[in-house]
């Protein structure tokens, strides 16, 4: 199918983008890589009055390390991060997740920030951002604010972004010395949406486990660094129940809880075993 008609604005700068967001109102949508939005428009699940295109906004197309964070601008594609030679050292969890995100051809055009802004509960990048304790940078025409990932994701495709705000960048903390991380997901076919995805991080702050595809948003639990054995297994089982999995066309709640326990145990083993 084809999208319904809309007005089109190509923003040359981030300022122009946020001014247009204010001028055009809540019915305007930001278009970056379009790898979620264009499918939604083609299927007419959304019919925004206007699209504000930031895919060629040079100042938003950046990937850089600053103040201990890998900062990715709103126009930077997933490929531009995935093919970064130093990524496996900088944010190894993100490097592990990229091959699981859709397909090569989609990552070539889809943006990192677009995935975060779209907030699909089974998407990989939001899960990585949450597991690592990353941040999102939001700005409107008058001010800029930074939110922790855990405060940004609010529900199924719902975030703390106000209608007049542009998600300008996301920031992934650079891996600290000795940090270990692991990412696994289960999907019907490679590249499909995950039925359950899990990410684990072990470092000086403790043990963090994030689960996607089960609740209405990616969910995070934190445990003391030394939790092991039956205590860890029990904590994981409690968390699997807390997620309140629902039956749907893809998997039953029972199967989803099973996957959380099985995949959760696998990633936790990878980050806690003393010899890799």
């Amino acid at each position, binding site marked *: 199918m084809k999208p319904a008609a809309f007005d*089109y604005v190509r923003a*040359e700068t981030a300022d122009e983008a946020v001014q247009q967001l204010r001028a055009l109102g809540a019915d305007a949508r930001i278009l970056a890589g379009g790898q979620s939005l264009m499918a939604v428009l083609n299927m007419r699940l959304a019919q925004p009055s206007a699209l504000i295109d930031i895919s060629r906004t040079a100042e938003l197309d950046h990937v850089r390390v600053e103040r201990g964070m890998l900062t990715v601008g709103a126009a930077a594609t997933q490929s531009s991060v995935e093919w970064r030679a130093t990524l496996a050292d900088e944010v190894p969890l993100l490097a592990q997740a990229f091959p699981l995100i859709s397909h090569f051809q989609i990552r*070539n*055009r889809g943006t990192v920030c677009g995935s975060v802004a779209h907030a699909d509960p089974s998407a990989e990048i939001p899960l990585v951002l949450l597991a690592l304790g990353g941040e999102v940078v939001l700005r409107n025409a008058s001010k800029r604010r930074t939110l922790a990932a855990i405060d940004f994701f609010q529900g199924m495709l719902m975030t703390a972004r106000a209608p007049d705000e542009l998600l300008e960048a996301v920031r992934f903390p650079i891996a600290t010395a000795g940090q270990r991380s692991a990412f696994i997901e289960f999907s019907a076919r490679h590249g499909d949406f995950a039925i359950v995805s899990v990410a684990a991080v072990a470092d000086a702050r403790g043990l963090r486990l994030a689960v996607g595809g089960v609740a209405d948003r990616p969910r995070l639990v934190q445990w003391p660094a030394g939790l092991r054995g039956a205590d860890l297994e029990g904590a994981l089982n409690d968390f699997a129940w807390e997620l309140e999995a629902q039956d749907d066309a893809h998997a039953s709640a029972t199967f989803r809880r099973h996957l959380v326990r099985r995949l959760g145990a696998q990633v936790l083993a990878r980050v806690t075993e003393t010899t890799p």
Partner: protein
Amino acid sequence: MKQIGRDSLHTVRLQLNGTARSAPCTPRMLLSDFLRDSLGATGTHVGCEHGVCGACTVQIDGVASRACMTLAVQVDGRDIATVEGLCEADGPMSDLQEALKRHHALQCGFCTAGILMSCDDYLRRRPDPSEAEVRDMLSGHLCRCTGYTPIVQAVLETAALRRAPTTAIPDAISTTED
């Protein structure tokens, strides 16, 4: 800043396989339709129109992308490569195309144009891919004829021949005429 009203025609100018082309379109026109209907470049096929099947894959500034998930107005001024540009109309086919032919890596051919554009980009970035990596890259394309195995073989062989062109493929295969 460029603003185009929903009913306004904007002339999109781009390089199509190295040739300057232009045509008017409204903002809602997909690049896939623009290529086929406005520029007559019907080598790019249109399948699912939501990014799943991969038939419409073209290269935007050399990067394999879905034409159905890109607006024509977004690629104003950019270089678009489609299957028509892989070889001259009356010249020999590219090495990758020859390899697909040798391996019978297509039957109906509907998916092939998109697969060629993906593989062309991928092999430039990853000249020595593993079979697993090739299969991973091809997961972005649906082919209902071949079962993928001959396509994988063709891509791996193309990569091997590019790295060591002297290790020629057997004459009996390479010179087969149809």
